[in-house]
């Protein structure tokens, strides 16, 4: 179509200033690499290696671009990659089904498409938020990977030697790996489809304004399902590329890659709030993430003196960044890249600078940040039903009731299976102890999610705070009180940074805390240089012990044989700390003005502002509170385990988010209760406890349920809890069916 001035109307550009900026940044970074290691970065080998290593992330980023432009999110791509790789390996492996590779490929691709279809249907037809639907799929996928492999490696190098499919993973003439051309083809297709076809227009329109798109006749549900299928298909292709290269599969495949791919797409210029993004930018983002990793892992030659067996010797080695530095810098660059837009482009910094240099009045920049809050009131219908119902119905109308009922059912199941000890005082407090860490994280997360935000950094902040306390006590010989205070302050600062980025820089909390996810974990590992630290003062370790130990150390031990003795010998100090915080946080959220402000901010931010609520302050406090809970969990972790391990808190953010959602919290904000989140955390703990429970059979034998499937159960319960909440409670499907059935005889009579 031509415009009146003769210019052709272009669809969303294929290439823009953002991509140009990314390219410039990559060239600069590459130059740094060339200075550090000219022997590698000075040759085409480096470029080809970057392309090869980015190929799989790039392919996944193509699919993810469609989803994010659509204003959705796909957290399941990493587990889909792993699942497809495992299913291909089981189909192809000579020790399993020994099928030809084409059959494995067909099964793998079909599975990928099916996962995408399930995600799409859950999100569109069943109205499950994309974050939750794909988070549940992440759990299920990872659980299936472990369950199907039993944790074992499946290899088939011998059979693969003569199979043409595996040429895909080989490096051919000119040093080009065959995954690179496949990546380039898929990227080109993605660029064309999103930038130049009807599918692309529909995607941008749906992500930009779904309602307007529907009025314009665009089938938005179909568009969103299509994006999920494309995303999962791309993840499936990446899984096949992975097995083609390795000729083997492990249960680790694809782990963590969902966040790398999302980071790549966001660094590539897409908005997490939809409507904006280009495939080329996403692919460049993937290349940038790989380039950063390669440059930061470089070293410079050095000579060190070491003593071996009493003999001092000089050795040549490499000086490089310590463990943890790579993720820390990756997080910083992610945040910096996303801040470029509001701070440099939208604010018109260059134009204003140029105007000032010329002595002219500076043009006004757009003050709109990256985050554009949707205006929609959430959580009201359920609140209304809750307030109008009475008796048991009132209790059941509460969103957390499902989780509480589930806790009772699971506990009763345990009591039924092992009545001999399940309900004992010791085991009850042991179960409480097992859920303390996730519960503590979920208390802070409740506030954040009720606000309509998310905090992906809690597990990493836990690790950073633990590392800080351990480092201070072991390396700097600080006293426990000083170590705890500094560690708590460090965790709190991480929350302050998250909050500033979310409220002042207007970054979506997802992006801000994704950056902190990498930064905090990196700093934690960096502080301890990848080592375990242990041997803290026993006065500090008491924080992680049973109450009786603290009482005994202060000469207050109760008398043996009394109930008080039994209770103090069973209850842990950390459980009491968590319970106290839960009580206060629960009351504040449910009964105070601030708590109502949190719910109001998440329910409808603009309306809350009109009502005089400082929503930025509320969100700030919530994000800082979440980090404080994580910091406390970190300090307790090292006291409980009497040592610090850099892997502390890994994947706990997913447990905490799942707890809040299972507990009835709305991922869109506007609802959340501490009781519900605690019940959600208890559900997860009880599932894990039941799966490691010894079941006694009548014939005297016993068995333990298959633990490898634990994440499948958690994923299924997560999705069922959300579906029940949406369809049974919010939509009142049963009530509607009952009304319809009741109306039919009346009509007949009439």
């Amino acid at each position, binding site marked *: 179509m031509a415009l009146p001035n003769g210019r052709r109307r272009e669809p969303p550009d294929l290439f823009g200033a953002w991509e140009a900026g990314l390219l410039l940044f990559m060239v600069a970074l590459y130059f740094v690499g060339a200075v550090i290691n000219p022997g590698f970065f000075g040759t085409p080998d480096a470029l080809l290696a970057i392309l090869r290593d980015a190929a799989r992330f790039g392919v996944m980023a193509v699919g993810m671009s469609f989803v994010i432009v659509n204003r959705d999110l796909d957290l399941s791509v990493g587990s889909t990659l792993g699942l497809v790789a495992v299913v291909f390996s089981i189909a192809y492996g000579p020790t399993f089904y020994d099928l030809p590779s084409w059959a494995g490929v067909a099964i793998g691709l079909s599975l990928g498409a099916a996962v995408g279809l399930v995600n799409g249907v859950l999100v569109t037809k069943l109205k499950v938020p994309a974050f939750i639907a794909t988070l549940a799929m992440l759990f299920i996928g990872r659980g299936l990977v472990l369950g199907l492999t039993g944790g074992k490696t499946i290899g088939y190098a011998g059979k693969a030697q003569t199979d043409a499919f595996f040429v895909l993973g080989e490096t051919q003439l000119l040093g080009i790996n065959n995954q690179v051309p496949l990546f380039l083809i898929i990227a080109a297709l993605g660029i064309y489809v999103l930038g130049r076809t009807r599918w692309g227009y529909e995607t941008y329109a749906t992500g930009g304004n779904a309602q307007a798109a529907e009025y314009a006749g665009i089938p938005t549900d179909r568009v969103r399902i299509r994006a999920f299928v494309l995303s999962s298909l791309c993840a499936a292709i990446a899984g096949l590329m992975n097995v083609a*290269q390795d000729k083997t599969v492990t249960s*680790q495949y694809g782990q963590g890659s969902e966040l790398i791919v999302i980071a790549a797409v966001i660094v590539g210029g897409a908005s997490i709030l939809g409507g904006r993004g280009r495939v080329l930018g996403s692919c460049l983002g993937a290349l940038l993430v790989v380039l950063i990793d390669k440059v930061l892992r470089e070293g410079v030659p050095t000579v060190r003196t070491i003593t071996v067996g009493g003999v001092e010797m000089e050795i040549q080695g490499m000086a*490089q960044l310590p463990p943890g530095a790579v993720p820390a810098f990756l997080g910083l660059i992610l945040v910096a890249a996303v801040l470029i837009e509001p701070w440099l482009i939208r604010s018109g910094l260059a134009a204003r600078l140029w105007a000032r240099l010329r002595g002219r009045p500076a043009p006004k920049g757009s003050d709109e940040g990256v985050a554009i809050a949707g205006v929609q009131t959430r959580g009201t219908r359920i609140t209304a039903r809750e307030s109008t119902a009475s008796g048991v119905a009132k209790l059941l109308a509460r969103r957390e009731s499902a989780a509480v009922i589930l806790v009772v059912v699971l506990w009763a199941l345990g009591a039924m299976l092992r009545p001999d000890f399940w309900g004992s005082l010791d085991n009850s407090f042991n179960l409480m102890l097992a859920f303390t860490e996730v519960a503590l994280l979920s208390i802070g997360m409740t506030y954040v999610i009720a606000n309509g935000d998310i905090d992906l950094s809690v597990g990493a902040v836990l690790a950073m705070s633990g590392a800080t306390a351990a480092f201070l006590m072991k390396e700097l010989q600080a006293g426990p009180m000083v170590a705890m205070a500094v560690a708590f302050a460090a965790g709190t600062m991480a929350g302050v940074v998250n909050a500033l980025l979310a409220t002042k820089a207007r970054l979506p909390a997802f992006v801000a805390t994704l950056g902190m996810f990498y930064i905090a974990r990196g700093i934690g*590992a960096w502080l301890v240089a990848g080592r*375990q630290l242990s041997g803290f003062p026993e006065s500090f370790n008491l924080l992680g012990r049973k109450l009786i130990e603290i009482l005994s150390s202060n000469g207050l031990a109760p008398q043996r044989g009394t109930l008080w003795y039994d209770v103090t010998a069973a209850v842990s100090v950390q459980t009491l700390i968590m319970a106290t915080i839960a009580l206060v946080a629960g009351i504040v959220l449910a009964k105070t003005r601030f708590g109502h402000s949190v719910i109001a901010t998440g329910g409808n931010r603009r309306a809350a502002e009109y009502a005089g609520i400082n929503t930025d302050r509320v969100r700030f406090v919530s994000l800082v509170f979440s980090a404080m809970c994580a910091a406390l969990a970190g300090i307790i972790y090292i006291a409980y*385990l009497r040592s610090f391990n*850099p892997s502390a808190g890994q994947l706990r953010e997913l447990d905490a988010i799942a707890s809040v959602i299972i507990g009835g919290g709305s991922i869109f904000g506007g609802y959340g209760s501490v009781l519900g989140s605690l019940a959600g955390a208890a559900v997860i703990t009880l599932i894990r406890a039941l799966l490691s429970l010894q079941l006694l059979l009548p014939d005297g034998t016993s068995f333990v349920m298959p633990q490898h499937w634990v994440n499948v159960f958690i994923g299924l319960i997560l999705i069922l809890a959300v579906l029940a909440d949406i369809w049974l409670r919010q939509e009142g499907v049963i009530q509607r069916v009952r009304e319809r059935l009741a109306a039919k005889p009346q009509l007949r009579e009439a």
Partner: protein
Amino acid sequence: MRNLLTTAALAAGFAITGTGASFAQSGMLEKAVGGYTFDTAAKENPATKDFNSNDDKLTFAIVTHTAGNGFFDPTYVGAKVAADAFGINLLMLGSEAPVDDIPREIEILNQIIQDPTIDGVIMTTPQSGAYDDIVKTLESRGIPVATTNSYDPKLRNRNNISHTGQDASAAAIGGEALAKCVIASGVKGGSIIFPSTTTLGNVEVNNRITAAFEATVKTLNDAGRLKNFKIDAGPTNIGIDVDANNIVGSIVSLIESRGDVVGAFAANGFVTPALGNAIAQLNMGEKICSFGFDLGPAQQEQIRAGHLDGSLGQQPFLQGFWPVMQLYLQIDRGIAAANLDTRAQLVTKATVDKVGKRYEN
């Protein structure tokens, strides 16, 4: 007649002496073992099966810090073989995560020690200090405990708890073999690297890297070749950090960026197969001397195919088999806690066909 009588007497005497010898021996040993026969002495104590739980069977649990990457499978096999041999009911548990998840292992242990039917616990102890409360509770309930695989020297009541495993210093065998391989290859210089997932903070793995690194340095120094090589085990000699979620890719990148790698050593069953895979992808089996730790099926295949020069088997089968035996003997006979050094068996292309025949690796 006299001769006949003499012969008959000799024959009878011989016969009597022959059979009488066994009686005499039996009699001697009866005295030696307090008046019982071997058969009687070898019998299980009638009270053994009622130990602790009084349920006419022994139930042991073996709990590891990961059950999600296959490394401990041969350990479970070994434990089951021993358990089956002595009619012991065995629970095989571990963190379901594919990487080390110590808090989860402790969560499982905390539940297991509440179970009144448990008569013995075997556990790995990869995080120093983290298992003391568990040992304390088990002690208070009179349940014996044994540790396996990873060793915590500061564990509560360490001297009275049996440990089965090899010392981390056994990795020095691999470091020495690596240096010898590099020297024998005739290269004039280059880099020798020690990749590891240091951010997982496994103290045992860290110690192995340090031991292998020092052995490589020493061997090269003894051969007067140390100055020819760059030896890189990271800033604190516990390994060059590689991405735990993409180990193969990280090692490939490392080899490519260094450009002159002639030797590599990996320290566990997680990184060693990845090292073999990386070398296979780069097709550099002939150019790089590569050794690792642990000897799963993947490593055995890689050694056969020439993608790994060798790997140290720490005999995971024994790490399951022996602690079950040990606990049984402690309960049945009051045998004091004994340690078993499973040592490290260096397996190369020449010897790989002799191992792993019946799920023991």
